[in-house]
C-alpha cells in the first residue's frame, strides 16, 4: 500500500440472502463479488456502472451501512471493516456519506441549522459552546445564507438541500466523503453549481471522495481514477484519461458509446457498440465472464472461464480474455 493511500479495499464481498422459505432453496445475491481498490488521499475515485451493478452496495459497505460478507476496508491504518459498536461509531467522523435524494436525506421536521448541529453534538465535535458558530461556518462554506439556518427542508430547493446534506457530512471534518449519485436528482444548471462546490471543498479541506455515479460526463469531470463495475465486479479500472480515451473492455466501450455525444452530426455514427438486452440476474450468475451474454465479441472460453482483472498497461487494469497482456484489444475495433 502506498503511503498516500487513504482508503484501501481488499476483496470486498457483500451477499444478500433471498428467498429460502420452508421448502425453497436459499439463494444468494452476490451484489459485490470481490472488489479491490486504493484511493489516494485528496483524490477522487469514481465507480461507474448500470443500475444493479453493485456500485451503491460497494459504497454502503465502505460506509459500514450494509453487512460485509468478507474482505477488508482500511481507512488509513484503521481496519474499519473489523470495528463494531462504539469503536466504529467513534471512527465514523472520519468517513461520511452524501446520498442521491436530498429530499429523503433530511428530516422534514428539523430546521436546517439543527440538522448540522445534531451531527456536531453526536460526534462531539469541538466545545459545545462553539458548535453554533461551526454550523454557521459550514453553512457559509457550502454557499448557504445565515438566515436560512432557521428554515425547514421544504423551504429549500433540491440543490440547496444537497448543500445542507454536504454541510452536515462535513461537520465532523471527515477525511473521506462517500458520494452516491449526489447530483443525479438535480437539474443540470444546479448540478454544475454542486460539482463546483464539491471541487472547491476538496481543494480547501483536502477531502477524498469515493464517487458513485452512472453519469459518465460527471465522472469524467470529477474523478482522478475510475472503475467500471458490472454485476458485482470491476471489469476495468484506470486513471481517468486512459479509461476515457482508450477504453479496453467491450463493456466500457459500450457504455461510452451509449452516452449522448452533444454533436448532432455524430448521430448514427459508426464505432458504436449497442448492447442488447439487460444484465443477467445476479442470483444465477453465468459461469464465465459475466458480460459474455451481451458481449458482441465473446468467444467460447468467455462463457466458461472467468477473466481476471489484470494490469495490462501502467495502472490500467482490465478483466477481458480478448484484451492482450500488452493492452491491445484482440476484438475488432469498430471504425
Amino acid at each position, binding site marked *: 500500500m502506498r503511503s498516500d493511500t487513504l482508503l484501501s479495499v481488499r476483496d470486498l464481498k457483500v451477499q444478500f440472502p433471498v428467498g429460502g422459505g420452508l421448502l425453497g432453496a436459499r439463494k444468494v445475491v452476490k451484489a459485490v463479488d470481490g472488489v479491490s481498490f486504493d484511493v489516494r488521499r485528496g483524490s477522487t475515485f469514481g465507480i461507474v456502472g*448500470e443500475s444493479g451493478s453493485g456500485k451503491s452496495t460497494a459504497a454502503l459497505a465502505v460506509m459500514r451501512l450494509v453487512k460485509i460478507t468478507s474482505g477488508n476496508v482500511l481507512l488509513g491504518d484503521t481496519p474499519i471493516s473489523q470495528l463494531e459498536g462504539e469503536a466504529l461509531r467513534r471512527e465514523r467522523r472520519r468517513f461520511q456519506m452524501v446520498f442521491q435524494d436530498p429530499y429523503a436525506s433530511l428530516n422534514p421536521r428539523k430546521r436546517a441549522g439543527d440538522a448540522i448541529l445534531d451531527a456536531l453534538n453526536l460526534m462531539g465535535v469541538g466545545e459545545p459552546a462553539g458548535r453554533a458558530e461551526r454550523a454557521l461556518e459550514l453553512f457559509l462554506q457550502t454557499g448557504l445564507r445565515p438566515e436560512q439556518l432557521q428554515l425547514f427542508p421544504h423551504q429549500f430547493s433540491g440543490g440547496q438541500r444537497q448543500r445542507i446534506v454536504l454541510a452536515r457530512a462535513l461537520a465532523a471534518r471527515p477525511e473521506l466523503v462517500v458520494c452516491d449519485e449526489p447530483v443525479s436528482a438535480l437539474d443540470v444548471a444546479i448540478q*454544475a453549481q454542486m460539482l463546483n462546490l464539491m471541487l472547491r471543498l476538496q481543494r480547501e479541506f483536502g477531502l477524498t471522495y469515493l464517487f458513485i455515479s*452512472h*453519469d459518465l460526463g460527471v465522472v469524467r*469531470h470529477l474523478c482522478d481514477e475510475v472503475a467500471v463495475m458490472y454485476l458485482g465486479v470491476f471489469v476495468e479500472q484506470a486513471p481517468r484519461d486512459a479509461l476515457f480515451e482508450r477504453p479496453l473492455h467491450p463493456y466500457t466501450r459500450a457504455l461510452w458509446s451509449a452516452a449522448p455525444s452533444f454533436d448532432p452530426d455524430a448521430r448514427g455514427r459508426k464505432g458504436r457498440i449497442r*448492447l442488447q438486452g439487460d444484465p443477467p440476474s445476479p442470483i444465477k450468475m453465468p459461469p464465465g465472464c459475466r458480460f459474455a451474454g451481451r458481449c458482441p465479441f465473446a468467444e467460447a472460453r468467455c462463457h466458461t472461464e472467468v477473466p481476471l482483472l489484470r494490469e495490462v498497461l501502467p495502472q490500467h487494469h482490465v478483466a477481458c480474455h480478448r484484451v492482450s497482456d500488452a493492452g491491445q484489444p484482440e476484438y475488432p475495433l469498430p471504425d
Partner: protein
Amino acid sequence: MSAVLHPSSSKPDLLAPEVTHAGPVLSVKGLGVEFRTRRGVARVLDNVSFELCRGQTLGVVGESGCGKSVTALAVMRLIAQPPGRITSGQVYFEGRDLLTLTEREMRQVRGNRISMIFQEPMTSLNPAYTVGDQIAEAVRLHEGLSTSASLARAVEMLEAVGIPAAAQRVHEYPHQFSGGMRQRVMIGMALACRPDVLIADEPTTALDVTVQAQIFDLIAELRERTGTAVMLITHDMGAIAEMADRVVVMYAGRIVEAGAVRDILSVPLHPYTRGLIRCAPGRRTVAPGQPLEEIPGTVPSLLERGAGCLFADRCAQVMPRCRVELPPVSTRAGGHQVACWLHQEHLA
C-alpha cells in the same frame, strides 16, 4: 425489426404512414396556463407557440418547472381544472382546435391520434393487468377490434418494440419486466393506434445510459417508419443533440429560443441556452476538475412575474431594459428565434 402487423392478405406494414400532408401536424399558438395555489395564481405557461411536423422530432428542453411537461399535458387536455386553467391559445390538430373539443371528442384523439409516454414506466402501467390487456384495451376502444384481434395486435406491437418472445410475454404483468422493457411496452402501447403525434416526456430519465440508447434508437426507427411526429421533452441537452430536429428552449413558462438543432447547439443566442449547454460536464468545455460554467441562482417564482425578462436575475449580460420590458421574439435565417434584448438587431 420487421413487424408486419396486420393479419390481412396484402400484409401492409401497419406502422407505415397512411397519409402525407404538408405543413405542421400540430400547431400550438399563444398557449397560456395558470394554476391557482394558496399563495396566489401561478402563470405556468405564457404565450407558448410552436409547430410540430410529420416525421420530425421537436425537442423541448428546460429546467424543472419551466413548463415543458405542462405544455404536453395542455396539448393532451390532461390539466386538472381546477386548480389549473388554460387561459389562452389554440392547439390546432388536423385543422381543429383541440381546446374547443368536448371531452368525448377529445377521447377519440387522446391515445389514438396523439399519445404520450411518461418518465416513470412503472407508475404508468397498471400492475393488476397483463401488458397485453393494457395494449389491447387501447386498440379495442379506438379501433373497435375484437378481443382476439386486439391481443394479436398487442403481440405485434411488443415485437415491433423489440421484446423477445412477445407471444408469451404479452400475458405477463408489468412487474415481470425490467425498467427498459417497461418503457418499450409503453412505447408499444402509445404506438398501437398509429398516432400522428407521440409526446415523450423524459422517456429515459429513469433508465440506464445503455438502455436510454436503445430506447432512443427505437423511437428514431419507429419515427422513420411511421412518420409519427415526436415531441421529446427533456432537461438533457445530450438527448436533444441525439434526437431532435428542432428545439424549443423554455424558461419559466416562456419559450426563450427556438430553432434547428444545429443552430441551437452551435450558435445558441439566448444566455440561458448558452448556460444550459455549457454547464453540462459531458460537453467537456472545461478541463476535468476545473470549475464548470454555472447558471447562478435558481428558477424564479411563477407567482409574481415582473414586467421584464424572467431570466434577468440570473443573466450575466443583463441590461437595465431587461428588467422592465419583456424582450420580443426576433427571427433569424433558418427560423432561429430568440427572445432576448441582446439580439434585437434582427427584428423582422
